């Protein structure tokens, strides 16, 4: 028994060390920094300073400031774009997963290869490619003009549209893979059974297919939502830095504004909302398991 336990400890040691050193300790530093006073040139002063959180909520820091919840507004923008990203990638991936799951094994392998293909290229280069596609003299506008569908270039770049497009593009594979894994295992005899028992297509979909594929959709949505919420590259490049998400604010706090504690507090705000989403999901999954068992 003890030998088994020792072996288990030995097996868990590497991952525990990695998580401890590269995740928990940095996280602890972020938490501590968020309660300290910003240093004059970056870094922190070791003085207790709880106002960073008040500032996020909009409380004025000094006499000439007024109550102004702009940081919450920016956070709301981030939530909006993250939700839109989840929604559109879901709409794209869900039908696509069904289509792929019905192909032959060779086709499936090929499609999965295509979906993971973008990871072979740097993210920045792929975002830059979108800039070239969307700009006024870019391929999309030039193509539409060539086909005489438009007379003036469309303002595609540097907009909320471009930001959602870019994020959907980046995160689609993360949505696709969990949904696909789920759809692939779908038991078609259940669908046939519901049809035999007289269910119409809508009933079959909502009462059989949707509940059975929900875990994949939820997993995909969470995996997409988390990085989308904190993303800063896409709004900076494709949003022209006019679309501002919390990620951009964090980046600016650490560099241009030299306010590490405020950046840390914002980072924890994002993390807290992610943890909240995960907790809700865990509780729901736990309830469902309990329900299934009963």
């Amino acid at each position, binding site marked *: 028994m003890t030998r088994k336990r020792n072996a288990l400890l030995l097996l868990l040691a590497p991952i525990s060390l990695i998580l401890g050193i590269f995740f928990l300790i940095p996280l602890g530093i972020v938490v501590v920094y968020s309660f300290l006073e910003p240093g004059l040139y970056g870094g922190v002063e070791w003085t207790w300073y709880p106002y960073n959180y008040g500032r996020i909520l909009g409380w004025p820091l000094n006499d000439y400031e007024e109550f102004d919840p702009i940081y919450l507004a920016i956070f709301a923008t981030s939530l909006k774009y993250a939700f839109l990203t989840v929604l559109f990638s879901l709409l794209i991936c869900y039908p696509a997963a069904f289509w792929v799951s019905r192909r032959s094994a060779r086709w499936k392998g090929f499609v999965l290869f295509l979906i993971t293909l973008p990871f072979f290229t740097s993210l920045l280069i792929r975002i830059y490619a979108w800039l070239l596609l969307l700009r006024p003299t870019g391929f999309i506008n030039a193509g539409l003009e060539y086909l005489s569908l438009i007379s003036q270039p469309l303002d595609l770049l540097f907009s909320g549209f471009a930001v959602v497009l870019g994020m959907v593009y980046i995160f689609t594979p993360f949505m696709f893979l969990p949904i696909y894994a789920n759809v692939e295992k779908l038991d078609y005899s259940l669908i046939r059974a519901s049809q035999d028992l007289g269910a119409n297509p809508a009933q079959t979909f909502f009462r059989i297919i949707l509940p059975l594929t929900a875990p994949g959709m939820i997993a995909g949505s969470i995996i997409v939502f988390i990085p989308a919420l904190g993303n800063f590259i896409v709004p900076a490049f494709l949003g022209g830095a006019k679309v501002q998400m919390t990620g951009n*604010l964090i980046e600016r706090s650490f560099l*241009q504004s030299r306010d590490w504690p405020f950046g840390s507090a914002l980072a924890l705000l994002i993390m807290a909302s992610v943890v909240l989403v995960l907790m809700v999901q865990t509780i729901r999954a736990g309830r469902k398991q309990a329900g299934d068992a009963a």
Partner: protein
Amino acid sequence: MKRSLVRVLASAAAIAVCGQMAAAEGKLNLYNWGDYINPELIDAFGKEFGVEVTLDTYSTNEEMLARIQAGASGYDLVWPSVHMHDIMQQLGLLQPAHPNQMPGWENIDPAALRSKEDPNGDYCLPYAWGAVGIFYNKKLIPEVKGWTDFFAYAKANPGKITMLDDLRETLGVGLIMTGASVNSRDPDEISRAEEYISEQVPNIGAFRYDVIALVTAGDIAAGHYYVGAVLNALQDPENLGFVIPEEGATMYQEDICLLANAPNVDNAKLFMQFMLRPENAAKNAERLTNGTVNLAAIELLPENLRTNPSINPTPEVRAKLQIFDDLGKDLRLYTKAWDRIKTN
């Protein structure tokens, strides 16, 4: 405060330029902005003195400071902007290299001794300077004299201009246009500047550093940009132009500074002497299309650079250029204003 192509790309890039010598006598490790030195000079220095030179790059002063403060050792020379030179000297991160006792110092423009901490040049060697102005595409906007033209064009053609994604630079334009100093610490002046820029925001296409390609292709008509764009304007003078706005503009200057913990002090001083040679200063200015602080080098510049009003401006234009001071804690006034500008 940057001139390199893509901020994130540049900060990730670390270019190692090694001398040809297999058995180099020594090393010299440079930490400079991306694309901010003529690579030929690094090669030439390495060959002449048998020194193996490495070059790492950064894209903001803060990034460099953070790395040096975090104890990045091994670097000998850094290129801080003047206000960052002051900060680093105060923090004890620099050591005096005494460029003012080196041969060729007499060529350095006394006006380039802008550092408040180092008024005599005991620590750092002034390197290069430049104005921040407007780079424009003449096919879309035939002439731009200043910010008034720039914003008037944007009002008629929303989305066709960009400004720098830099809170000091862009709020600086607001301060210039509302008649205040770009180093104002007065909340009312800053809030007027904020209001001025906020009014323009609906017409501004993007806040970006990387606009050369967009202006050149005509995706946008004009962009708030550094004087380095003169390089592009000179390649295609029919279509492209750069102007220092007549209402006034900001300027930057970087100095070459010797780090307190530099491992190769002697080679670093040799490099400063090398950069003091007028022909090298000229070669560098030619590549960067920057203003040079070496008065003897101006004579050596090609005609089209020497007579370029953006690179070698008249005293009247120079008088309207303002350089940033470090604001310390008062930077907060700008941060909040900038956050609000971006949120509207």
